């Protein structure tokens, strides 16, 4: 287990997210269909697949370029609210990595916190508003609370799952319109988890 996240690691991470979400796309759509517009899974899935494809095209990319490329592909291929939010997360994360060849645990802490901050600002929302933030925020906190990268991903994924589960209940109480997104967010982070 490497002590730092290199460009190669990052590409592998995005690839894994893409694969995982692709495998869950139909299920996400099905959830969205509960009463959403049913294209949520398809949207995220195609967007992450293109992101993975795009960054694998890059010749000898640095960490920042990988994150920026991921951000722009996500926001432009996904569209909608989720496209803007996922894109913002990676964009703000990228901004913290200028001139870094690889990312230490503390670099990753900073990166994740910046991404979370960005999503909160973009969405003008915070924990408890029943959005993806209720999954993302505990995940970032859990990551930061750990010592090693490996432990960080583990704890983040767990916290995200719990956060998503919580919103699920919250949301179930608050009508189905927002339900779709929350569950998909849960899966999104579940995707991130499989990386560790």
């Amino acid at each position, binding site marked *: 287990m490497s002590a730092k996240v290199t460009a190669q690691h990052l590409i592998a991470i995005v690839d894994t997210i893409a694969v995982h979400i692709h495998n869950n796309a139909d299920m996400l759509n099905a959830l969205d269909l509960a009463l959403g517009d049913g294209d949520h899974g398809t949207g995220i899935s195609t967007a992450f697949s293109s992101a993975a494809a795009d960054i694998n095209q890059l010749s000898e990319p640095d960490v920042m370029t990988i994150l920026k490329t991921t951000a722009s592909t996500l926001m432009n291929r996904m*569209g909608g*609210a989720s496209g803007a939010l996922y894109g913002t997360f990676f964009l703000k994360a990228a901004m913290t990595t200028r001139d870094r060849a690889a990312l230490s645990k503390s670099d990753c802490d900073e990166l994740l916190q910046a991404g979370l901050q960005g999503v909160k600002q973009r969405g003008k929302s915070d924990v408890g508003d029943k959005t993806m933030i209720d999954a993302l925020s505990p995940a970032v906190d859990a990551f930061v609370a750990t010592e090693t990268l490996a432990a960080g991903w583990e704890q983040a994924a767990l916290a995200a799952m719990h956060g998503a589960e919580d919103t699920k209940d919250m949301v179930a109480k608050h009508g189905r319109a927002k339900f779709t997104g929350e569950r998909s967010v849960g899966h999104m982070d579940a995707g991130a988890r499989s990386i560790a």
Partner: protein
Amino acid sequence: MSARKQKLINQPENILSDMLSGFVAAYHDIVQLTDNRLIVRRNPKAEGKVGLVIGNGSGHEPAMIGLIGEGLFDVNIAGEIFTAPGPERIVEGIKAADRGAGVLVCVSHHAGDLMNAEMALELCEMEGIDNVEMVVLYDDISSAPKGSESERRGTAGLFFVWKMLGAFAEQSDDLNACKAIAEKIRDNTRTLAMALTSCTNPITGELMFELPDDEMEIGTGVHGEVGFGRQKVASADETIDLMLPRIIEDLPFQSGDDVLVMLNNSGSMTLMELFILYNRVAQILADNSINVYKSWIGPYATTQEMAGFALSLCRVDDELKALWDAPANGAYLKL
């Protein structure tokens, strides 16, 4: 559930491209499709006038592709069905609309549309494209209480902004004046919608929402978002009696006001029904000494084949009356 199960399309993933190709093939004298899939005017407005851009999810036709043209908007960025386009495409739209006097980006208030437009403006800043302004538009009184107007959804009433702002920008070299007119029209417009049936998502073929045959819902949004009032289907007059007083009270519209009235067909209402509904609208407005300057009855912002309508009023002064009467030449709006 009396919603149509089948649609005449080809591959679901080609809906947007098939639709845009067919649209420009039919109306190539009014619009053209650029390589990056923007719908732009065939005859751009004069140099030195303010450009108007809007991005939106598709599925609401004729909005907004049918409102691109002289006296209307310059560029539309059509996203996938019910999905706002991403920021880069919006930036491309802003560039395409620029005639040297700046560009106003109009946003129908929905989370996706707003966030992507904000990001587009940030990208413009990074690229050093200044002289771009954004205006957020909303009108649906069912989506937030009086006093929280800025939290309301953008729905069919934005039609009045598109028409009159379009007429204004055709002549204007002042970006801030365009933004001010848009806000003036928005702040004088109030809308309430209802649905009699659901409709199907063309990509999945699934219902957008559930509504029993013998019930109707008041306060729905343009994506079939839930409203506040579900009840047994009422008569035409009873339905207007439920809706119009709420609209009148919200602004409020007062005795002596001049108004524009719109009955927007959400999809599969018959004109027969809309005329019967309008008959009651006209009676109530007359009883309240509110003068109808002009009215518009037909499909503009649709929710696929949903059976329902939006009733919208806009208070107008002499400036707005002149803008309403100004010529417009979009594929689906001609004055």
